[in-house]
């Protein structure tokens, strides 16, 4: 029944393993991209608070301060603070 086989095979094509693969990939990739781009809501407030504390002790200009939340490889998050200290502000 070559002819019947032919039609059956045509129909099977709708749910091939490749289309399953594509569907799964689209979901996981969208999910992972979302995680990569997400900055938590608390970050702006946290930045303000840290700056306020720092400024109790030293002079920190906006340019010499940066804060960055980095998603290293999926599950590890690193909060990175960079504060540039100028000579006269070094703790003594």
């Amino acid at each position: 029944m070559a002819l019947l086989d032919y039609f059956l095979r045509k129909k099977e094509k709708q749910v091939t393993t490749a289309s399953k693969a594509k569907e799964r990939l689209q979901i996981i990739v969208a999910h992972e991209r979302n995680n990569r781009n997400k900055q938590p809501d608390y970050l702006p407030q946290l930045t303000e608070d840290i700056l306020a504390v720092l400024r109790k002790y030293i002079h920190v200009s906006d340019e010499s301060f940066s804060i960055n939340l980095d998603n290293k490889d999926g599950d590890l998050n690193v909060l990175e603070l960079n504060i540039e200290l100028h000579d006269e502000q070094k703790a003594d």
Partner: protein
Amino acid sequence: MARIIVVTSGKGGVGKTTSSAAIGLGLALKGHKVVLIDFDIGLRNLDLIMGCERRVVYDFVNVINGEATLNQALIKDKRVSSLSILPASQTRDKDALNKENVGKVLEELGETYDYIICDSPAGIEAGAMMALYYADEAIVTTNPEVSSVRDSDRILGMLASRSRRAELGLEPIKEHLLLTRYSPKRVEEGEMLSVEDVEDILSIPLLGVIPESQAVLKASNAGEPVILDTESDAGKAYQDVIDRLLGETVEFRFLVAEKKGIFSRMFGG
């Protein structure tokens, strides 16, 4: 200004070294000055694929540590004089490379070469990071298979956030998709992701599609990059990649399965 191009993938064994060798040699054959750098510290293989393994005296890490000059470590290709190879070290520890010392080497190479091709190690760790950090362009080498596509997407994330261009807020790295080990027949049978599927998911411009080819193994056996096998499908597909990298518009080939004619069927072609 040299174009710094990283050949990267995340997943291992997808064809980065094969592609680096073919692309480096192909660009040099077009008259450009090219240097190929093996960033796979501890697992060097580019020398073997290029067929210059017996001429390695000094390596990348020797240069970094000041034990050799760049000129001492660079191996001139015997086939094309405008091509050089900087081999990876075989044994030393991976932490030898850092942004600062790699940057210095690339800067010095940039004075002489038009193209600096960086063959990245697999993974998304420090080694892969170093290979992509200074890139202007990235050739994201991907197999039509779920884990490879997913890892390529993670590499795209790193290119966009961890590279020098990202850190300095410069124009982003130019991304190219290179689909390798492609089997049109399996795609037609619904067993393999198609070019369009992978393009849909990664959404970066397609640079080339290299078919699964017996010519690749022959080429690596002989230490002759597959682009030199001008009669082979993979060789031709890499040649198209070169033309596209140089700005030409070239139609994609080897995307449909060869229909076996009655003769080849009769004679087992």
